[in-house]
Each structure stands twice: as structure tokens, then as C-alpha cells.
């Protein structure tokens, strides 16, 4: 997970979900895939879209839309699965589009406001080209949800 002091040194993978921009430090990201066939599994947490076969391993895929309770958009060609390192296993995050891999200037990164956001799933917000990009707290996104 990106620690505040590291910001400016590490690269971030920026992706969009429902027009919003989010990012994860590149160290948390294992790889980025086009969306393969996803096998849904009945009776599991709804935010888990299903599982995919990644070169012989079964990887769960979490829909960021569902996780953030956003309206689900149509699937399109730009959709990607960002494979990240969970606890002891890799987990896929389904996003609308991967925009770029970039560095943030330290002075452009602000800590989360603290009051406004109901869940502290962000470790901060970065400003880049007039856009605000949320830096995700991966562990909380994956493991702390209602």
C-alpha cells in the first residue's frame, strides 16, 4: 500500500469507474487483463462478479461498480481486470478503463478530507491535469465492506 511519504516516487495505475478516476500504486498491481469469460458463483458476496481462469489459477473478480454501489455500465472493449495482490491470493478488480500509469507530484496529493467520505477507502486524492484521482486503500476496498 502506498504510504504518504512514498507518493512522488512510485507510479500509479489510474483507471476509471463510472467516469470517476481511481488509482492504485503499481506495486499493488500484478497485471492488467482484458476481460475473459467470468464464471459467476451462486451464493457468494454480491460484489464478487465471479472467477476467471488466469493461466490455470482461479482468480476471483470484484466489481468496483458493485463495491462502490455505482450504476453498472454496459460492458465494452475498454473494460479491464486489474489483478492485485490480496491477502495470500491474487484478486481481480473489474474497472471500466485503465487510463494511464503515472507519477503524482507530492504537492498535488492531499490527504482525505476525513469528514465527507463515509468510508475511508481513500488514502488520498491526487490532482492531475485538472482532474481529481482517488488513491485507493486496497485492503479496505477488498476486505472491509458491509
Amino acid at each position, binding site marked *: 500500500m502506498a504510504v504518504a511519504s512514498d507518493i512522488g516516487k512510485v507510479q500509479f495505475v489510474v483507471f476509471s469507474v463510472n467516469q470517476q478516476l481511481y488509482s492504485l500504486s503499481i506495486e499493488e498491481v500484478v497485471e492488467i487483463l482484458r476481460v*475473459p*469469460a467470468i*464464471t459467476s*458463483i*451462486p*451464493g*457468494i*458476496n454480491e460484489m*464478487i462478479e*465471479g*472467477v*476467471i*481462469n488466469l493461466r*490455470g*489459477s*482461479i*482468480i*476471483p473478480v470484484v466489481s468496483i461498480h458493485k463495491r462502490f454501489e455505482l450504476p453498472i455500465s454496459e460492458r465494452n472493449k475498454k473494460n479491464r481486470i486489474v489483478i492485485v495482490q*490480496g*491477502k*495470500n*491470493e491474487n*484478486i481481480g478488480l473489474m474497472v471500466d478503463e485503465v487510463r494511464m500509469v503515472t507519477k503524482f507530484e507530492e504537492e498535488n496529493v492531499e490527504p482525505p478530507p476525513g469528514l465527507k467520505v463515509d468510508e475511508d477507502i481513500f488514502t488520498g486524492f491526487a490532482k492531475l491535469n485538472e482532474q481529481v484521482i482517488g488513491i485507493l486503500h486496497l485492503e479496505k476496498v*477488498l476486505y472491509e465492506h458491509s
Partner: protein
Amino acid sequence: MADFDLSAYLGVFLDEVDEQLQILDSEILVLEQHPEKIETIQNIFRAAHTLKGSSASMGFEQMKEFTHYLENVFDQVRNQKLAVTPKLVNVIFESIDFIQVLKDGILNGNLDEINIQPYVDKLNEFHPQEMNDEEIQNAKPSKDQIITELDDYTKNVVISGLAFGHNALEVSIKLSNEALMKNVRALLIHNNLKEAGEIVAAFPSIDEMEKSEGFEGEMIFILLTMQTKQEILEMINQISDIKHVNINQITEENMNLHQKELAVPIQKTQLEQVLEEKPVGNQKAKINPTVRVDVDKLEHLMNLVGELVIDQTRLVDVRGRLADRDTRQEDDMETLDEVTNHLSRVITELQEGMMKTRMLPIEQLFNRFPRMVRDTTQKANKEIDFVMTGKETELDRTLIEEISDPIIHLLRNSIDHGIEPADERERLGKSRKGKIELRAAHEENHIVISIRDDGKGIDPDKIKQTAINKGTISEEEAAKLDDKEAMFLIFKSGISTAEKITDISGRGVGMDIVRAHIEKLNGLIDIDSTIGAGTTFTIKLPLTLAIISSLLVKFGQKTFAIPLVNVLEIIRLNKEDIQTIKEKEVGLVRGRVLPLVRMKEKLGLDPSEEAAEEKKREFVIVVGIADKRIGIIADKTIGNQEIVIKSLGPYIGSPPYIAGATIMGDGSVALILDVSSVVREQGTQDTETATDNKRKELEDERQFVTFKLDTEEYGIDIQRAKDIVSVPAMTKVVNAPKDLLGIINLRGKMLPVIDLRRKFNLQEQSQTKKSRIIVVENNQHDVGFLVDEVTQVLKTTNSLIEQPPSGSQYNHSNLIKGISKLEDRVVIILEFNEILQSINLQDLPAELVSQP
């Protein structure tokens, strides 16, 4: 000796301890029955001695000291100073258990905290006069009379050595007969001795020891050293596979005593003679050399094989799709065909081979039981004969560990509840001694373990009563149960067959857990019992857990895999055979009621538009776990496939009714149905002889590989056809019988190929691209048959096969088993045994038929 890291040998050491404890356990059981058996006593002594030696060399003082006392006791038994009494046997067993404790102490690193004194005291009761090492040494039969004839040179060296205050020792060593690489061990001993002092002479000479052939493992060294006899002895004992060591002190007096028998450099010592005369136990058959492999590494290889299996299914899948799409590129298709076929074969063999490396004889597990049975029998105050068969049956090591508890429980159950007390047995006209048989065997792709006793059997009425009393079932329900169903009630928690609770197997827990455990392993358990005559528990398990055969089905759009071991049969039910009882669907199968589960709905899968479409018939997969049977309604059955079980991972956890996932040929993920959870929830008992029905059904449905010869179509039982290969280069055989076309090299084996055209007196025809060789299994050696074209796998039933009219044109020399009339064609089913016989393979050149 050079300093080296002992921890590297810890694993080996612990294995050895296990092994020796195992030997002690089983041999002492023998000793208890036959206290006079000298070879048993020798075995026991040697095991204790090995334990002492190896723990000493690893530096585990407590263990060394304790085993030393144990060895002393055995030594007394061996020298007939101590009689084998039940009390002694009990104390020895306690001691063996204590060594286990010491071993655990080593594992946990708290060996130093264990107090060996109480156990030493117990042993010392049999051994009041405590001896120290030196005295034991002196008490041994050797009176330091040296056995070697020394030449003058050696004598002089020894004398001058003695003058300098050295010890002169004659060290005679015999390696055990089974020892591998005797010459290496001899050199090892030689090197060790060289470090301890100076070797003045060696018999046979070092050069001779070095040569591997002819060296029998007996050697004598004359050593000058500053170390004591005891130190040298311990040093030698660190080397494994030594059968016997004897060290004699050489003095100026005894050196010259030896005048006789110049020609024989080695004379056997007393003890050795004893050993020679009484060959050690029943010498085991030749054991292939083995390699110990790290389980993790094996696991990794296993996973890779799993990947290969998946790739292979993908290839086959692609091949199939290409074949559908494009028939123009026939050449390429055929190559692909060949490659996929060959790959399948290689992978199957690789997979089997891999699996076999993980296979261990169940002996490992079984060997623990005699001891346990003995102790339990004693506690229960009964008399029992315990017989084990099929120890050599192999199964996956993970299963061996897992199946241990259920077997122990069932054995205890038999001892405690099954077998009657001796007096009662006598009164009933049975032998006083009860008999318990534990049997393991392979049956097809399963292992079957049965525990049979000749005790009082299970009384279904009593079980019913207990179940009613406990409120497990109502009286109404009980009345409906037949005897077998009632018996299965013992798998419900809290129901016991015992009238009174004992501390062996009582308290009413157990059988339900046994069943749960077996279900977890994808196994089945069955009971068969006759009042007064005995009870048999039968456990059926898959051979391995990593890769299983499964039935692929569709629930809606989704593919699911059902472990084949749970599938009893697949039936189709007409709509009118499906009824609703208490809002639950049941099927009527052969007059019995089978609860049905619409898995698609249960899993909450897309109730799409096609579901609304009324079906006339439903596919029903009858699955069973232990005593319960249910029918799962599937939309489609796809077929059997080997699947690699993959976990869904901790993030997803264990969703209901799903046991894991697997990867299909097209790379998609299919889910594995957790049959046990579905059955547990929905099942009712149906203990009708489902296996019989299955067998009947299997007999009824037949599969044939069909092929063309000229204009006719023939079929051969699919079980007989081992492989189908395209025609490779063929070697003609000189003076061959007329049907023999030649031989081909099939994966390194020579395969004779018979031309069926010739056999059937058809006109010879040159081979085409479609020509194939069907490899047929035939006792020791396979035979290939050249056919014009392989057409399909034909599924048909016996009822559709007609007997050939006798005397018809088809039926020359009984080659035809039957004729299957299909819609638009006729397939002649061949009797391959007759064909094979008529070929008379004995006429083939010997090197062909004597395949390895």
C-alpha cells in the same frame, strides 16, 4: 569426525525412528504370542540398538540413554535371563510410547525437559542390577579372543603400538544383508577408523573392499588407537545398516594364541553364527531402491501435471471445433488428431506416474493397528484375533493420513460393541476368540477398505428404539424404515450401538463424525450386518484427491462437475414419474421414491426463458453419500472428464453447494458441486441395492468402437480397444503367419499388427489416410488390427444387439458376437477373443510376444 550440520539429517533420523518404532511395535506383538521366537527377539534387539545408535549419533542424549536401558532389557531377553511376561510386554509398549514422546520432544525442541527417570525405573524393575556401558560390553560373549591370524609385520607394529600406550583393537564388522553399496559403507567405516587411529591391517584388503563385486560385507580391521573400545563401538554404530560389530582387545598374549586355520582370515564369532543359523525373519522380497522426495516438490509437479491435463483437454476441444468447421484441410486435421491422441496418452501416463509417486502402501497405516487393537482388546477385556489383508494396497499419501481416524474408530467400535465377551461367545456356541478382519483392496478406480467382525451384529430394532428415545426420529418414521435403513441410523449423531457407554468408543459420538470424514474425502460408507453373525463396514474411496473423474452437467447455462464417485446412475424420468409430496418433488424410480433436487433453482441460477419450456423428460443424476440417495435434475449431461480440483481461495470462501472449481477445455471455469452438502440437506435413505442396478444398467448399455472394412461396418467393445493410432512405418517380419502384416514401434514397445482384411478374406487394399490401427488389449501383449477407417463410438443397448443367425454368411468361425441394427445401417459386433485365438500368436517370433 568433521563438524557437519546434523539438522540436515534430522528428517532422515526421525523417519528412521518411526520405522524402528514400527518394527518394535509389530515384533513385540509377535513376541507376546510366541515368546520363544529367536528371530523376533533378534529383530527387537536390533531395532532398539539402532535407535540407540542413531540417537547417539544425532546427539540426543535422553533418547540414547533411554533406549540404552530398553536395549539392556532386550539383551536379557535375548540371553534368556528374562522371561517374556504380559507385564514385561506392557512395560515395553509403554516404553515405545515414551520413545514416541521423546521423538515429539525432539520435534518440538523440548527434549531436554522430558524426564526419562520414571520410565527408566520401570524398565529397571526387570533389570535390578544397573550396568554401565563398560560392563555391558564386558558381559558380551566375546572374551577378547582375537580371531584373526596376524602376520609378523603386523604383530610388530601392534607390539610397538602397545608399548606407546595405544589400544590395539580387532574390529570385526558385518553389514546387514540388505545394505546397499556395501563397499561404500566399508570404506566409510575404514575412513572413520582412520580418524580414530591407525589401521594396521584390514581383511579383506582395502582394495578388495573397494571392488563392489564379491564383497559380502564382512570385514576385520586391526586398529591402533588412543580411544577406548566403547568409543570406537559408538563411532561405528553411527553408520547405518551394520548388522553386527565386535571389538576385541589385542594383547601380546592373545596375539600369538591364534595359530590355526591360516587359510581362513575371517572366522565367525559366536553371535554371528547364531545370526547365520537363524536367518533374520522372513527375508523381504527385493526392494527397489527409492528416493525420498520433498512433498512440496512433488506437489508442485503434481500441479504442473494438472496444468497439462487442462491444456490437453483444451487441445482436444479445439480439435473438435476445427473438425466441425473445416474438413478441407484433412492433412492438418489428421496431424492434429495424432498429436492430441498422443498427447492424451502421454499425459495420462504421466499423470498416473505422478500419482503413483504419491502412492504409498497402506501398510504404513495398517501397521499401527495391531498394537491399537491389542491395547483396546485388553481394555475391553475381550479376546480377539486380528487379521489384516491387502497391506500392499497403495493409495495417495494424503488419503492415508486422512483415513486413519475413521478406521481406528470403526475398529474400536467392532472391538467394543461388535465382539461379545469371551464367556458370552462360548455360551452362544461361538469360539471364545472373536475375529476382526481389516481388508484393503483396489476395485477399479477406488480403494475399498472393509472392517469385518464376527460379533453380535447390529440390531435394527434397538437402533430404532434409541433413535426414537433420543428424538432423532419419530415412531412413525421409525416404523417405515427397513432394517438396513435403521442400521444407517448409527451414523446420526448421538446414536450408539452400545448398551453401556465405555471409555473406549462410547459417549455416543463418533459414527456421525466417521461418516462426515469419509464424505469429506469423497468416499462412501456402507454397513452390512446380520444379528448374531457380525458386522462389516465398507469404505470406498477415490485413489487420489487431486485429480478426479467427474460427470459434467449443465444447470441452465452453467457447467458443473459432479465427482463420479458419488454418481450412482443417470436416468431419465418421464414427467408422469415426477410427483410432488409435501411440496417437494420426488421421482419414482423402479417403484421407489427418490427425492429430486432442481439444482438450477437451488443455486439460484438464471431462470431464463428456456426453463419455462416444459420438458417431457428430465435428466436425473442419482448421487449418493453414505446411506443417502437423491436425484439431481440437470438440464443436460455432457460427459465424463478427468478434472483438476482447484480451490476457490479464501477470498470467496466456501459458498453453499460448491466444493471448488476446475478449468475446462475451453479455458472457462466450471464449478464442482458439493454433493455431500446437497445430499445431507435433501436426502432420504434409499439403500436399495443401487450398485446392483447400476451394474445392470451398465451391462445393458454398451459402447463399441466401430470401423469400416471394405463395405461392412464392424464394432468392437470399447473396453477392449486400448488405443487407436494412425499407421506408422511398419517392419515386415520374415516367415510371419499369413495374417501378420508386420510390427510397429508403439511408444517403445513392439506391436504386432494383424490385417483384418486378410483375416476376413477381403481383397487387399492399399492403405489410405483413413487407415488406422486399433490396439487391442490381450493378456500380456497387445495386438494391433489394421482397419480401413474408424467411424465412431457407438452407444447401444444389449436389447438392440441381435444374435447372428447361425449358419449365416456372416458367422464364419464364431467371430461374430452379434449384429446391431441401427436406423440405416448394420454394425457387426466382433468377438475379438475368437479372432485373437484364431490368429495363434504363439507362432509369432518370440521377441514380439514377450513384451516387457
